[in-house]
């Protein structure tokens, strides 16, 4: 199965929509352990993304679309999720530069590039109570599923489930990165907002592919 450019645009639309729906929720999560702006920031960023994508020529390839999303997030989000998700989308775009459709292998590469980009930018690892706690298990589940010849929609479904488990796990651990790390152990008991928004994006990806 391949993912077409049109699918990519549908996935982005879905992410924009889901972030908007969860704007207050993400901000509430951030209010508990951070600076209460995650939902608002991401929503502003993805609104700008939606706007920006309408200005791209029809012939724009998927790599350029992803890099444009990254640059737009970097310049509009404001908080740490700007450079983090910005880097993720830019790196993802670089590995599929010039492509108008994505193979299953490309999708694994995109996840890998995005994950590595976030790790480098944030100097974080799994277990630090960050977006990595959702993305890394999702990447591993996706890769393993595809290696075992599981069809892409189901592989993405498993990735989304793994992301959800990873997100839920952040409730049990204390933050070692970002504003929440100032709280240390007092951050235990709260979901990480970044892990939550990352899960929502992966879930959006899976939902669009499973519904099409």
């Amino acid at each position, binding site marked *: 199965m391949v993912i077409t450019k049109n699918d990519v645009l549908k996935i982005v639309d879905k992410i924009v929509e889901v972030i908007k729906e969860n704007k207050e929720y993400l901000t509430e999560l951030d209010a508990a352990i951070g600076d209460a702006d995650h939902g608002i*920031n991401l929503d502003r960023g993805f609104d700008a993304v939606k706007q920006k994508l309408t200005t791209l020529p029809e012939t724009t390839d998927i790599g350029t679309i992803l890099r444009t999303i990254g640059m737009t997030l*970097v*310049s*509009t989000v404001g908080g740490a999720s700007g450079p*983090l998700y*910005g880097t993720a989308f830019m790196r993802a775009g670089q590995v599929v530069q010039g492509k108008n459709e994505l193979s299953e292998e490309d999708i694994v590469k995109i996840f890998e590039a995005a994950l590595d980009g976030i790790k480098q930018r944030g100097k974080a690892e799994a277990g630090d109570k960050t977006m990595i706690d959702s993305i890394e298990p999702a990447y591993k589940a996706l890769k393993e599923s595809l290696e075992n010849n599981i069809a892409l929609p189901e592989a993405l479904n498993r990735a989304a489930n793994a992301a959800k488990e990873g997100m839920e796990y952040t409730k049990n651990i204390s933050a070692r990165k970002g*504003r929440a790390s100032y709280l240390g152990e007092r951050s235990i008991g709260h979901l990480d907002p970044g892990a939550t928004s990352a899960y929502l994006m992966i879930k959006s990806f899976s939902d669009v592919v499973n519904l099409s």
Partner: protein
Amino acid sequence: MMVEEKMVGIVLVSHSRKIVEGIYELASQMTGGKVPIGIAGGTQDGRLGTDATEIMEEIKKVDEGEGVVVLVDIGSAVMSAQMAIELLGEEYEGKVKIADAPLVEGAIAASVEASIGSDFDKVLLVAEEAKKLNKF
């Protein structure tokens, strides 16, 4: 005629526009406005936050060819500044660095050092030494 001396540029980055405007005012007063100082703070729509593309533009603006020292506050300011430096590409490699220094003290120390014509490494070093300054 006096030849105008080129100086190391300084860019101040904070989540808050007011913070960098205030430090800019303070540092400019101490250097008589001689040092090129750029400021990047807040988002384009007036929220608290940092913007890597704004930081990149400010670095370009204050660069006189002698290098640029970037001072940042917390959290995403560091990541946005790192990203800005990456976005600048090879042309600026090694010529722009983030000082591991407190924003206010570092900015003033770096600006004063730049104003006396010190080179990039020295300005960066002095900025970073500002973190060891005792208040009393």
